[in-house]
């Protein structure tokens, strides 16, 4: 098992006299098998980052236990650190006045990579992450995507078995984010386990083997993105490029138009069949049934309060 979390709780003391208790994790349990890409989804303040911090040993749990490859994150923190790499999203955690090469040489030393091997490892990562040409430029001159690739290179310097990605594509443009997701696939193919926190449902759907929805420090559900959608019981959608009116058909809950596409919400698969047959009979050729998306499930489960804190 890559990650095993059992009944982990974490509270913070806040306020001037530290007399206000805030619950970040409330008895959270989670299993992530080795070599799985696992997404942690949830609104701001749900506890995703807190869990990542506990797994990376920089935060102690208030209760419960957490293990990384069978190693307790509190009792065997030093051993756990050899197994993990952390990658932040955005521009935090980088030294802007260093070059990418200097950054990686610095972290190579902190990951106890002998000097003789460090140079080769740094060159290899710079090449792999597409930073070789700019390796000797200051980080402050990098684009957001390049900074993120440097973050990933930094996270990989110790050749970790578990990679914790904390909102890694925050602020990236679509092309950079797409490339980054490709890299995640490569890392999985190398046998690494990846735990990724994200707000981006498309990202979670495209890269994660399974996702866990978290809210208020508790697990709401853990499933494959498709399985989660199916077990959610949410209505299906039928999409068609037409202006035909279907409102009166049995099983139709509602309709909406988006970019010239009619979206019909139906109660179940049988109702979807009725709508599709109805449209095909009227000569509409572009029709398809669409299962609920991960985003629909997310919004349904966390109560449409993604902007909340």
């Amino acid at each position, binding site marked *: 098992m890559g990650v095993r979390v059992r009944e982990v709780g974490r509270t913070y003391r806040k306020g001037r006299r530290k007399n206000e208790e805030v619950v970040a994790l409330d008895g959270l349990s989670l299993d992530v098998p080795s070599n799985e890409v696992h997404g942690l989804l949830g609104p701001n303040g749900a506890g995703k980052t807190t869990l990542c911090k506990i797994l990376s040993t*920089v935060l*102690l749990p208030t209760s419960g236990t957490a293990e990384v490859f069978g190693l307790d994150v509190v009792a065997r923190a030093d051993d756990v650190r050899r197994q993990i790499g952390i990658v932040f999203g955005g521009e935090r955690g980088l030294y802007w006045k260093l070059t990418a090469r200097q950054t990686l040489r610095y972290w190579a030393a902190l990951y106890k990579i002998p000097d003789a091997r460090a140079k080769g490892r740094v060159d290899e990562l710079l090449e792999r992450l597409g930073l070789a040409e700019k390796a000797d430029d200051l980080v402050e001159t990098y684009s957001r995507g390049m900074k993120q690739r440097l973050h990933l290179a930094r996270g990989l310097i110790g050749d970790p078995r578990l990679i914790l990605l904390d909102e890694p594509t925050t602020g990236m443009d679509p092309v950079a984010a797409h490339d980054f997701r490709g890299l995640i696939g490569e890392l999985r193919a190398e046998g690494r386990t990846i735990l990724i926190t994200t707000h981006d449902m498309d990202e979670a759907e495209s890269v994660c083997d399974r996702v866990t929805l978290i809210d208020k420090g508790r697990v709401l559900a853990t499933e494959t993105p498709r399985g989660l959608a199916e077990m959610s019981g949410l209505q299906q959608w039928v999409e068609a490029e037409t202006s035909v009116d279907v409102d009166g058909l049995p099983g139709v809950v509602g309709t909406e138009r988006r970019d010239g596409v009619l979206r019909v919400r139906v109660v179940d698969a049988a109702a979807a069949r009725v709508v599709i047959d109805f449209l095909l009979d009227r000569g509409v050729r572009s029709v398809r049934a669409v299962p609920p998306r991960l985003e629909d499930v997310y919004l349904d489960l966390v109560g449409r309060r993604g902007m909340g804190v």
Partner: protein
Amino acid sequence: MRLFLTGARMQLWLVRRQPDDLLTLCTIPFTVLMLMSIVVHSGRTDLLANAFLAPVLIGLWGFATGLAAEVLLTERWTRSLELGLAAPTSLHPVYLGRVAAVLVLGVVPLLETWVLGRLVFGVTPTLHHPGVFWAAVGASLFAMAGTGLLLAAFMLVNDNGHYQNFLSFPVYVLSGVMVPVEYLPDFLQPLSHAVFLSWSADLMRDALAPAPVAAVWWRLAVIFALGAVALVGGRLSLELTLRRARAEGSVAYA
């Protein structure tokens, strides 16, 4: 040792690219001009050594309290501290290396002082005992590195520039860098023995005087010992601070 050197090298890379951090060095000439003017125009050439050494030691202390102590604070702001804590190595030697690298630049005020004394007033103190003088400088740098680590840990707990500024002036007074300790009230003088800078200043002043320097090894040992106490204190303090930060969840700012 490798981690210490890694920290030192990294800090020198950073300082080289952030010349703003060296502004403290630019303040030294003003102090030199002020003190030398008073000494030269009052005819108190017996205080020449004080006037030369004060800017040097103030510069050294300024670096320790300024750049060195802010090393950890900046790490916390940028969340690099969090990444460092997750690395499978002890951070103390890395940060000690970074603090020590900053302090190497603390010898620059020494050169500035000598050059300004010669150019503006046409005087420089004679180095009667160069071996003692440089040994005192070396011991002082070691002690300042230990003190810098202690201050860095302290700043991490009380990340507030007011403490940093507040600490400087009592140290200037008690160390005798501005005013000889014997000029202070009797009840304050024993306190100065606990400040390594007072031993450093005394030994350096004696090294500039023609008379033989008494108890050189003992005085060097005291400087080293006070530095070692600060170093151990800094290491323990940093360890406890980081442990507490992990428990409280204050390694990084929210």
